[in-house]
């Protein structure tokens, strides 16, 4: 698989500060083309950090990272991935259409081409008619759909998703899970998906990567052999329950259930400090 891996990690460590917190330790992982891989683990296990290393938003301390056959820095410059955060991170002053077109603007697409592409994407995420709205006029689920459309706009081979549905209610989350799978099937992209939810990971993924409490290590991989395409009934199958149990068992082995310390967000260094 590694010769066609979209993401390849070898011995990746991440420490914050000098001799400080070890966030990730000895991560080896290959993610192949068209895979849907979920990273799951307790809070503070470094799964978001790992995602950001793939996106060259932060750098690993040790180890090799290859994204789309190149160093992550080059992959970022080549716009090989689209990213979706837990918050939709829409620009409030832009309409829905202009938010979706943001990366296209920066890639120098002309107005007509942008408009055509935005129309396709609005259709894809079922937001036609909302192109002139501003983010505050949309519900959380709709905002996240805009954010997904924006990430898909330039057809990147890799989609990085950092708990994209974490802030949504259960019903919206399950509906968006189904929509995401349809989008994934329609596009040719590979997805790396960070989540806290065991059932979401099992439902969406072709493979689930279970990580331990800090320092984050890979405890095990679970191949999700549920039939495609997944439907509402998938969650009721016996196999779904078995796989959920497997993931939960690995999480327990990794200390995921005794992490008493409520570290709320992943620790990643951000570029900005307020004055």
């Amino acid at each position: 698989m590694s010769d066609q891996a979209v993401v390849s990690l070898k011995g990746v460590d991440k420490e914050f500060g000098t001799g400080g917190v070890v966030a990730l330790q000895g991560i080896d992982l290959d993610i192949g083309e068209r895979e849907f891989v979920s990273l799951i683990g307790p809070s503070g296990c470094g799964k978001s950090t790992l995602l950001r290393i793939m996106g060259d938003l932060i750098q690993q301390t040790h180890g090799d990272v290859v994204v789309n056959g190149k160093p992550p820095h080059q992959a970022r410059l080549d716009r090989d991935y689209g990213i979706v955060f837990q918050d939709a991170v829409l620009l409030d002053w832009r309409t829905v259409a202009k938010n979706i077109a943001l990366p296209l603007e920066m890639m120098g697409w002309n107005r007509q081409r942008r408009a055509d592409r935005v129309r396709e994407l609005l259709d894809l995420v079922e937001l036609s008619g909302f192109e002139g709205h501003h983010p505050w006029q949309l519900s959380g689920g709709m905002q996240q759909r805009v954010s997904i459309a924006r990430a898909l706009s330039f057809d990147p081979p890799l989609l990085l998703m950092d708990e994209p549905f974490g802030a949504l209610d259960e019903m919206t989350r399950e509906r968006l899970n189904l929509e995401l799978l349809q989008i994934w099937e329609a596009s040719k992209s590979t997805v790396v998906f960070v989540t806290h939810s065991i059932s979401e990971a099992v439902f969406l993924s072709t493979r689930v990567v279970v990580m331990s409490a800090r320092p984050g290590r890979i405890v095990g991989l679970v191949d999700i052999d549920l039939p495609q395409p997944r439907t509402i009934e998938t969650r009721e199958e016996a196999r779904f329950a078995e796989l959920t149990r497997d993931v939960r068992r690995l999480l327990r082995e990794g200390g995921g259930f005794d992490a008493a310390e409520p570290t709320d967000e992943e620790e990643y260094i951000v570029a900005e400090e307020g004055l």
Partner: protein
Amino acid sequence: MSTVVEPIPRGTLGRRIGRGFQDWIPAVVVFVAGIALWEGLVRGLDIQNFLLPPPSDITQTLWTERDTLWSAGWFTFQEALGGWLIGCSAGVLVALVLARWRRLATALMPYAIAANAIPIIAFAPITNNWFGTLNQTSKMVIAAVLCFFPVLVNTIRGLTSVRPQQLELMRSYAAGELATFRRVRFPNSLPYLFTGLKVGTVLAMIGAIVGDYFGGSQDALGIQIRRQAGVFAFTEAWAAIVVASILGIAFYAAVSVAERLAMSWHPSMRGAAD
């Protein structure tokens, strides 16, 4: 999997800029009642004219002395506007530099914030001394210095208080510094910038008028207020104060309208009836 929510109809431009007529009625009632109370109390309690002239007298003076008052008002407003333009431009420019070179900002910001808290107006006699008592320049300078610090502090805050994920997003698109500035930092700073600009209008008017108090041309409004009060012509002084107030409010309102036009996207700019 159909979309449940219907698109929200967008408000008209008028609705988005101003509040509906009905929303203004309570404020108008309060204004009229306040003026009536003032008039009634002054007449009923037989308050001496030099203590508090009744609104009817002030209005009459406003009308009879309109040429002098408005030409003096315009003279002083030019001082305020000039100072505001200079001070705000300088504030924004310095903010841009400091937001770009953070280390410089770390060194200078404590002083900017401290300067923002000192009564700069106390320097008015000094600027008169430096730039000439009788011309408009000295008042523009004090007005400009007054505007400079709040605009600087607010704009820097706006340019730097960008959500980290917005920067990560731009980084993921391989956006350069200029693109990030244009598409994220600058629009993000607008609410802060306009707060500074609005505070600046008030400070510029104060700077110009108080600057006049310390000596200025016979054409200046501040000089008129001081002179009339000095010769017990309090109705005339009050009329001049009304002119200053009207100009100050108009100045503030003009910047507010610009703000609403520039930030029609902002949730706070919705009509109150929404």
